[in-house]
């Protein structure tokens, strides 16, 4: 019993740390280059427009709200919103939901500082909410976000957009929009670099413990 528990703790610790040192990432295998990231976000924006019909002008269609999970999910939500506006002329409202206060592992993990939370303009009541995160892994973060969302109001529907889906789900959760599916081992680590935080875009895969 001890071994899988230990592994689970380790892998969610990797998910926990969202800060990557761009210099150390160099050693990892490049999954998406700088230009790939831009293209992937553009494709996801097109998919969101298609699936939500947010530019149809039909009053029956739900208002679309993007809610990012800090820190990189929020940045991605802003980028997606920019592209959606560019392609469709409609700019969805953006919010940010820190899930720290909703995590179920608070007692067993070191203290982690809170990130910014902001409720989107107009709230989430009766809207189509698209949660945005960088990496989908165990699904626990998304579960926490769903709990958090419930306290913000009652959306008409909730969808999930992630840049990378690396598998290893521990909960029955799947993404509606996926930038790239990456089969990984639990011992591997995905690093998402975004210009706003790291100076450049890119996604890297590396063995946990490599050069760290």
């Amino acid at each position, binding site marked *: 019993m001890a071994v899988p528990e230990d592994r689970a*703790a380790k892998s969610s*610790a990797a998910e*926990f740390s969202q800060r990557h040192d761009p210099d150390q990432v160099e050693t990892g295998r490049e999954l998406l280059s700088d230009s790939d990231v831009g293209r992937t976000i553009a494709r996801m924006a097109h998919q969101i427009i298609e699936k939500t019909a947010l530019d149809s002008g039909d009053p029956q269609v739900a208002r679309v709200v993007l809610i990012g999970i800090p820190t990189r999910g929020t940045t991605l939500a802003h980028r997606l919103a920019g592209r959606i506006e560019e392609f469709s002329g409609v700019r969805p409202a953006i919010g940010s939901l*820190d899930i720290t*206060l*909703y995590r179920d592992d*608070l*007692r*067993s*993990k*070191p*203290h*982690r*500082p*809170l*990130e*910014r*939370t*902001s*409720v989107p303009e107009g*709230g989430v*009541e009766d809207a189509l909410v698209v949660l945005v995160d960088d990496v989908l892994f165990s699904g626990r973060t998304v579960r926490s976000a769903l*709990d958090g969302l*419930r*306290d*913000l*109001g009652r959306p008409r529907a909730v969808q999930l957009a992630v840049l990378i889906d690396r598998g290893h789900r521990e909960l029955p959760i799947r993404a509606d929009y996926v930038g790239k599916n990456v089969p990984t081992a639990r011992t591997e680590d995905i690093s998402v670099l975004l210009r706003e935080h790291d100076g450049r875009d890119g996604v890297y895969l590396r063995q946990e413990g490599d050069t760290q």
Partner: protein
Amino acid sequence: MKHLLSVTDLDRETANGLLDEAERFEQALLGREVKKLPTLRGRTVMTVFFENSTRTRVSFEVAGKWMSADVINVSASSSSVSKGESLRDTALTLHAAGADALIVRHPASGAAHQIARWFNEMDEASSGYAGPGPAIINAGDGTHEHPTQALLDALTLRQRLGDLEGKRVVLVGDILHSRVARSNAFLLSTLGAEVVLVSPRTLLPVGVEAWPVRVSDSLDAELPGADAVMMLRVQAERMNGGFFPSAREYSIRYGLSERRMKMLDDHAVVLHPGPMLRGMEIGFSVADSPKAAVLQQVNNGVHMRMAVLFRLLVGTDEVVA
């Protein structure tokens, strides 16, 4: 961080971190339909008040409840203290009953420290109880300290004035009996502010020379150039002799009247930890003016206490490799 007993335990980084976190709690609750976070679900927070209080107890209670903790209020009059039970036995009882945090207010200076010491001794002797004792939060001990009040005052000042580095804060009134003044003087100087005390000589504590403050006699001389004025309550209940000739004279020399308020810069803030004695320490119109941040202080109190409970009750100290 296990307990919050004194602001002198906080370095600048920790103190600023707590203020940031309080602001994040405010943001997290803004515009919400349901003001309830599951963060402290299953944790038991007990407030143990041997002295009366509205603001502090209520804001700790609200903070705990908004984070889904089970909050139990124990007051001296409704507990076995009124039958003569000692502080130690009361504290041990609450420990044994399963408190995760004890928020202690006591008329004796050092009471919270003493409880923390008893728990540590017990922990070392491992005398029958499993695990370490609850986190202790000092919610005011005699004339000694009131750390969460100082933190919420610092938060209010930071919201009104920006970074506190180099800002001049004047504390006025009964410094001797004021734990708020003591905690504020130390915390504000940790945060880089310049602290000036204005008080009758009889109401200055022994050893004030060792504080990181400047002492002044004249309120009129200090008001121009002050970024903030913090009025203190005259604590008649702690006074066992004549500390000043009359309430009227005190009011004339140390009260913040309308005339004095005009001497303040436009951006200056007036704070009061409450309860206010209007007409004596602070003019009626001054207390209600836009410069006064009294209700903002109370509002910040809830978020500040959420941040403190979060810091003390959530997360392990060991860093996961």
